[in-house]
């Protein structure tokens, strides 16, 4: 599957790379949906022997292939929220030199990166590779509610119902982009929603 090229943007917007196997005693790989393909691309028996894979399929069918890599540990979770305490525990127990690989949607990578940062790993030391949906995790700047998997601009805040436009301004701490009311100066004048990158 070809990868989506994000257009150039402002300096708070995250930039993703391509995963590569790095030397290390232990490897933590967290992926959702199509992110599994990025792990399959770099997997070798030597790497897998030291890897812990945490995978959230979200309807994708790569679970069997990942399990077939016979990583040292494999976990499949039904959602990120269901997996997060496990992620926290793995990071808590991690030793110096743990390599972290995040791949899949921006929401997954952002939230997992946040956990790794809270465990003391600098965000610049974490590898990321975007795969799959280009939907965004958005915070409404007005009510502070987070809406997951936003595909259109503008969109309706799932918490307060305001019509929000999708900014590129991004907070690593919140793992979210900022949504701002689009019709504050002309209530009701909401443009037709279209794909974020259309």
């Amino acid at each position: 599957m070809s990868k989506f090229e994000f257009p150039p943007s402002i300096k708070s917007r995250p930039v993703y790379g391509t995963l590569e196997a790095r030397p290390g005693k232990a490897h933590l790989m967290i992926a959702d949906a199509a992110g599994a393909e990025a792990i399959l691309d770099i997997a070798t028996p030597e790497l897998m022997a030291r890897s812990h894979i945490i995978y959230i399929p979200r309807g994708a069918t790569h679970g069997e292939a990942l399990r077939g890599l016979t990583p040292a540990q494999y976990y499949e979770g039904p959602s990120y929220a269901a997996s997060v305490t496990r992620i926290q525990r793995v990071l808590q127990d991690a030793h110096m030199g743990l390599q972290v690989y995040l791949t899949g949607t921006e929401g997954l990578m952002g939230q997992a990166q946040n956990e790794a940062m809270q465990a003391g790993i600098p965000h610049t030391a974490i590898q990321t590779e975007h795969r799959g949906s280009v939907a965004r995790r958005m915070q409404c700047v007005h009510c502070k509610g987070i809406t997951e998997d936003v595909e259109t601009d503008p969109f309706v805040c799932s918490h307060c119902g305001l019509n929000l436009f999708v900014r590129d301004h991004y907070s690593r701490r919140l793992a979210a982009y900022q949504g701002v009311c689009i019709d504050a100066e002309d209530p009701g004048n909401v443009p037709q929603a279209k794909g974020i990158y259309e």
Partner: protein
Amino acid sequence: MTIQFNDETFREDYSFRNSQRAIDRFPFPFDKDSYMYAVNMEQHRGGPADSVYEKRFDVDEHYVSEMRDRAMVLADDPLRCQSLPHMTLAGWDLLELIMVSKSEDYPDLFELHRDGDEWHWVNKPMGIDDTFTFMDETTLPYGPMEYITRQTQGDFCVLDQRDDNLWMDAGMVTTQADWSLDFDIGMNFFEWHAPVPLAHEKGIFVRALKFLLNIQQGAPARRLNWTMTVNPLLDTSPENYHKWGIQKTTLTPENIGAKQHLRVELQTFFRLPRSNALVFPIRCYLIAFQDIVSVPKWGRRLHRVIRDLPEELATYKGFIDNRPMMLDFLSAYDDGLPTSNGVWPEKDSEPPLKT
């Protein structure tokens, strides 16, 4: 001089007004007839008598009312004041800086008595008389940054310095030009400035950061920034934009002189001694168009600046839709005569408006 504190509001009935003294000392931000982003830093070591640059933390006639407005904003939204856990020491540094500065610069208004770590702070305008133990948070009603910035005009960003960058890791932000501390907290210098157009490409932020990283104790710096606000609304936050944004549509040719305000930020930068953090106060001054044009030089100049401002900047600063009406108003105060260099009003030497 003794300051007469106004009893005024920055919301609903907007009873905020500038006295003649406040107009005369307004920090007009344009030193020539055009504007483009610049680092424009200078030392913050005093200035002309009675100017806003004279004291380290200017206290003016709006002080008590501004602090009342801040308390209302915080009651509605406590997330406007946040401090990441490693920033508490910087908060004490800031408390010390402000208490020492204000008690030295305004001895008739503020007193600080120190006996070792036992401190006694008196803030007469706000009726505060507290005794506490320096560096012991349990002896104050709020954290040290929140305690002192509830008593000091202007927003405060407290920036941690590490990895050759500055990090927005604490702040008190209730009078902001449409940015969110709650969203930006934890970002580095380039990230929190990311939405600003043109300035990145001009290398402004790279140069500004280099300057700021090298600010030393006892050698603070300052610069001005500006935007436009309809009504004297201090809390132009993104959080409340869905409530105040509509006010931009209430301008008419009849009310624009009173309603449209130039909003100027006096930004200062102080190195803090124990934490090596940098504190970045952003003090907001508001002035109605009708008061600006009472100064002939400022009226001429503001017209020319707004007329010639690049479209991206007028859009970013949020007044692109109102610019034609602003120019209709301001053009009546521009007779085409040349203006003298610099920001000062020059009321004695500048010619009156030709009619």
